[in-house]
């Protein structure tokens, strides 16, 4: 179900501007990888390039390869739409569709699938996805209510349910807790640890404690100056990045000396 990601010599450009340069990184299946680094270091750009969401911005291109279990997602015959169905994404601010009910939000992605091979009924998928996002108990009696009627943390879990309903192989999370209160953040972090059994997860976070709590591996990004491309400074098991980093910049960042 979950797959490994290999990023090879990846450069990401917005037009002429080189945003991320020379990234080489492997993210193992069923693990949680955290991207940390100061603002503007390209970690979100890199995350979005993993499911080709950065291409939504005109002029955004990549050079290099991103392999999903060995298959280049930038290959010549690869449809970005299909890449996004395999690699799901959760955004910084909860974004359930405001005109849809909770139920409709969960199955929004399923309605796009042309492939009717899945046997379960929609009701079953809604229940299993909401259970998977630890939201079922809270919303099972009001599935017909608008998704926007939920609290921020519940909305974010609804978005996670929507993303896992289409059974992706990888989940990308772009600062999923930055708009949430501490209790909701805790709920999402618990959920991430559970989801790892079924998906490969990459999370961008500004919160280093969060990276420490949820991730197996961490990659640290930095820029040498404003306007310069973001580069990956160091990667390794999270415990090592936080306790004995190899690079001085990493040590400065994780110990709170800058960023």
């Amino acid at each position, binding site marked *: 179900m979950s797959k490994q990601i290999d990023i090879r010599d990846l450069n990401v450009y917005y037009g002429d501007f080189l945003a991320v340069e020379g990234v080489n990184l492997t993210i193992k299946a069923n693990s949680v990888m955290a991207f940390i680094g100061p603002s503007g270091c390209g970690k979100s750009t890199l995350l979005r390039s993993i499911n080709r969401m950065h291409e939504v911005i005109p002029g955004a291109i990549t050079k290099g390869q991103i392999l999903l279990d060995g298959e280049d997602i930038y290959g010549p015959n690869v449809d970005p739409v299909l890449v996004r169905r395999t690699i799901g994404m959760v955004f910084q601010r909860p974004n359930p*569709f*405001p*005109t849809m009910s909770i139920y409709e939000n969960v199955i929004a992605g399923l*309605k796009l699938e042309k492939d009717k091979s899945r046997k379960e009924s929609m009701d079953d998928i809604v229940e299993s996805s909401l259970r998977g996002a630890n939201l079922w108990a809270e919303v099972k009696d009001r599935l017909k209510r608008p998704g926007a009627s939920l609290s921020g943390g519940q909305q974010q879990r609804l978005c996670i349910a929507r993303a896992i309903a289409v059974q992706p192989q990888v989940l990308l999370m772009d600062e999923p807790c930055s708009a949430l209160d501490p209790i909701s953040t805790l709920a999402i972090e618990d959920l991430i640890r559970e989801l790892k059994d079924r998906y490969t997860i990459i999370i961008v976070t500004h919160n280093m404690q969060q990276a420490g709590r949820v991730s197996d591996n961490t990659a640290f990004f930095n820029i040498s100056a404003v306007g310069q491309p973001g580069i990956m400074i160091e990667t390794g098991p999270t415990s090592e990045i936080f306790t004995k980093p190899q690079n001085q910049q990493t040590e400065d960042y994780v110990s709170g000396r800058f960023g």
Partner: protein
Amino acid sequence: MATITQPPTQEQPLDPDGIAGSSVRRGDRTFLGLSTGSGIFVLVLMAGIAVFLIWQSIPAFTENTANPLTEQSWLPDADPPVFGFAVLFFGTIVTSIIAMLLAVPIGYGIALFIAFYAPARVASILGFLVDLLAAVPSIIFGLWGLYYFMPYVVPAAEWLSQYLGWIPLFANDPEIWTKSILMAGLVLAIMILPTVSAISREVFLQVPRMHVEAALALGATRWEMIRMAVFPFSRPGMISAAMLGLGRALGETIAVALVLSAVFEINWQITAPGGNSFAANIALKWGEAGDVGRSALIASGLVLFFITLIVNMTARWVISRRKDFSGAN
């Protein structure tokens, strides 16, 4: 020490209106007065128009010897006066329906193209042109329709009648090919097209980026994204755009007066001469009308006033349903 930790015991109650407190700022009070005044002014204006129309049309209604709803002639200055709104109602509604059927889907299409498909430079040029088209005075559309567009519509009307003439709507028994309901509907369609597309484009551009990205990240194609994130969010605005277009079509005077033949009859054959509209009829007949005639024309204006009122209220009712699910929250 105790005095420092003690919380303030007397808390001022919140008074956002600033009416109860003695320290009302002059700026607040002035603004309150201005905004309330403007709101009341609109109501007074509407009421004033309604009262004027009703007052001025009373003589026509008392003198009329026919049923104004069913009578199909317009002879208010004859003795006895005879007139009815049936023909005007029919012509106004049918021309507007034709205009809506064509302009609304095409207008939405143009707006979608500008908002989501066209490259940035093309989109800005096209958007500018559409806005420019919306600003063209209607007399220009009328003249253009009459002298330039009609020669192209006539063969199309002949084709319609030849191949689809078995549908009564497209038959043309008099075999006269000139100004017609269809012609007026087409000119109206072109006139309201920029209104529909300019407003729906603005509405589409307001769809929050996060909803667009949510749909794309689920693996939606661009069209699926539009159906999933854009249409539901924009629905009230799209209805407003169509209704504003309809409002312009219902009330359009001079362009319709130029391309609609003045034959006063209900004519289901939309390619044949005949039909009339409220606004065009007022413009064409006002100059030669006598006292009762003018009063009758004002009465027809009153009817048009209520039609547009009903159209707008219906639109608002449609928009306000399912309020919980509106994009506003």
